[in-house]
């Protein structure tokens, strides 16, 4: 069973490790300009080649991984921190006005694609990594709220919850002590999926200039800068794209593996 976790965990861990190592060592300078070395193909000196300013692509990818991981991770945190309590409250107060207001509010947020939220935020506060985090995080809230509510609704009908109610526990305490621990596995799996979606969203926002701003390297902006160079130096566009694909693939495989390990009943329902 644990074997199912290995490919995703290894791929994801590689990128996290690269991001962590970049704090103490990178194979080159990511802020310095070395025009004499620009657009070099992969070589023993520059394993993945150099970009249009002569910067080492591997170093850029390592530091860019920090941006991607940080943005996606905090955005998942925002989604969970706001969405899970909302979902728990909606389930505990099922059928009431509060439940209706929370769920209709969720529907409304769902009507704003994350990019549209990002555009609105950028119109107000200007582009930047923090605004990207907020935009992706807001979009994550209804995802976690719906998931939590759906899972919690089924649990509220179970005998052990009835026993807790008979014991005199109120809805907030039951939600915290009995419902939440039973939906944690689902939240972990969904968290992995939202994390991978966050990596994609951050890359897209950075690509159009709404994410992390120079000189902070980001995978999306590396692609934007490489766009006009694809004909003469395809590796400059290939490397950041491959990094995104492998990181997202790793997280998705990890999510699948976690689902199998944490809830074997769901294995056959995989989509």
């Amino acid at each position, binding site marked *: 069973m644990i074997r199912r976790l290995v490919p995703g965990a290894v791929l994801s861990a590689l990128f996290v490790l690269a991001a962590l190592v970049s704090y103490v060592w990178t194979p080159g300078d990511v802020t310095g300009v070395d025009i004499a070395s620009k657009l070099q193909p992969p070589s023993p000196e520059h394993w993945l080649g150099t970009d249009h300013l002569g910067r080492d692509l591997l170093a850029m990818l390592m530091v860019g991984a920090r941006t991607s991981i940080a943005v996606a991770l905090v955005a998942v945190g925002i989604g969970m921190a706001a969405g899970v309590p909302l979902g728990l409250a909606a389930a505990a107060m099922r059928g009431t006005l509060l439940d209706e207001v929370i769920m*209709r509010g969720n*529907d*409304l947020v*769902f*009507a*704003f*694609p*994350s*990019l*549209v939220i990002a*555009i*609105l935020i*950028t*119109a*107000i*506060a200007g582009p930047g990594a923090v605004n990207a985090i907020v935009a992706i995080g807001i979009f994550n809230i209804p995802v976690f709220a719906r998931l939590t509510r759906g899972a919690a609704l089924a649990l509220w009908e179970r005998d052990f919850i009835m026993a807790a109610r008979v014991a005199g526990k109120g809805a907030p305490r039951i939600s915290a002590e009995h419902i939440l621990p039973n939906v944690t596995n689902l939240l972990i799996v969904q968290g992995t999926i939202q994390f*991978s979606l966050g990596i*994609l969203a951050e*890359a*897209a926002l950075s*690509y*159009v200039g709404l994410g992390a701003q120079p000189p902070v390297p980001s995978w999306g902006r590396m*692609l934007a800068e*490489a*766009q006009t160079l*694809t*004909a003469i130096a*395809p590796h400059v*566009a290939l490397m*950041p*794209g491959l990094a*995104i*694909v*492998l990181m*997202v*693939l790793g997280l*998705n*495989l990890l999510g699948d593996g976690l689902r199998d390990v944490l809830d074997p009943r769901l294995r*056959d*329902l*995989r*989509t």
Partner: protein
Amino acid sequence: MLSYALRRLISLALSLAVASLAIFLVVEVAPGDPAGFMLGTGAQPDTVAALRAELGLDQPKLERYLSWAGGMLSGDFGTSYTYRTPVAGMVADRLWVSLPLALYALALSTLLAFPAGLYAAARRGRAGDVAVMGATQLGIAVPNFWFAMLLVLLFSINLGWFSAGGFPGWSDPLAAIKALTLPAFALALPQAAILARVLRSSLIDVLGEDFIRTARAKGLTRFQALWRHGVRNALIPVLTIVGLQFSFLLAGAIIIEQVFFLPGLGRLIFQAISQRDLIVVESVVMLLVFAVILVTFLTDLAYAWVDPRLRRRR
């Protein structure tokens, strides 16, 4: 069915009203005065005040909201602060690029996903299924704007089959469709991967049902039973995803337009942001949100059509 549609229509109107208020309030808190921005830092205060009056920015917020929202209902989106032309005209011109692109991508995504999902479900657990699922796993992980760049590299730069960007307009429909083909493929691939996986999973669920067993017992092959009895019953989760995908495709089109330099809503909104043309920003965002809410409404109606039980449940 009619009363169900009416209930959903009321819900649609409420959602639109709340969304328009939210967008207006969010844009209203934006720092910076559009009139001041347009006239530059050296402008005299009375000149700025005159322009504010001309743009209607000196009116109370509630009045401005009602005027903007009421105007949108009648197709009047206001006047662009920057270009002094009706926003509706600017949006309509761009919509002729963005909307066909999203619909083209939706059609491609469905066309790619259905055979893949059907094939994988029919060959469950065999090599074909594993190959399709592996390909879809990869498809989900590929950022569409990077895939677009790869398509340009292969089909425009190396093979010369398509132009690398730009849009010739609809005066020559074939050239227009050709110009939208690579962008539509780039948009469609990740969505097709998701749709194929959902369809496969949904079909596999349906394949375990008694009515499929009965159909097989009557002598139908696995594929015939799947096609004649399985597909309609597996359509509900698929319709949900198709509905949701439209919003992703419209929003995704904003990014893909940047790759292919297409003069769509994406280009318009980024220009408007840089020029602080807030009335254009709020109108385009409202239009995108309206499209998503409308598609959700139509998806709900489609559910009720596919599965009459849902009309009673909701």
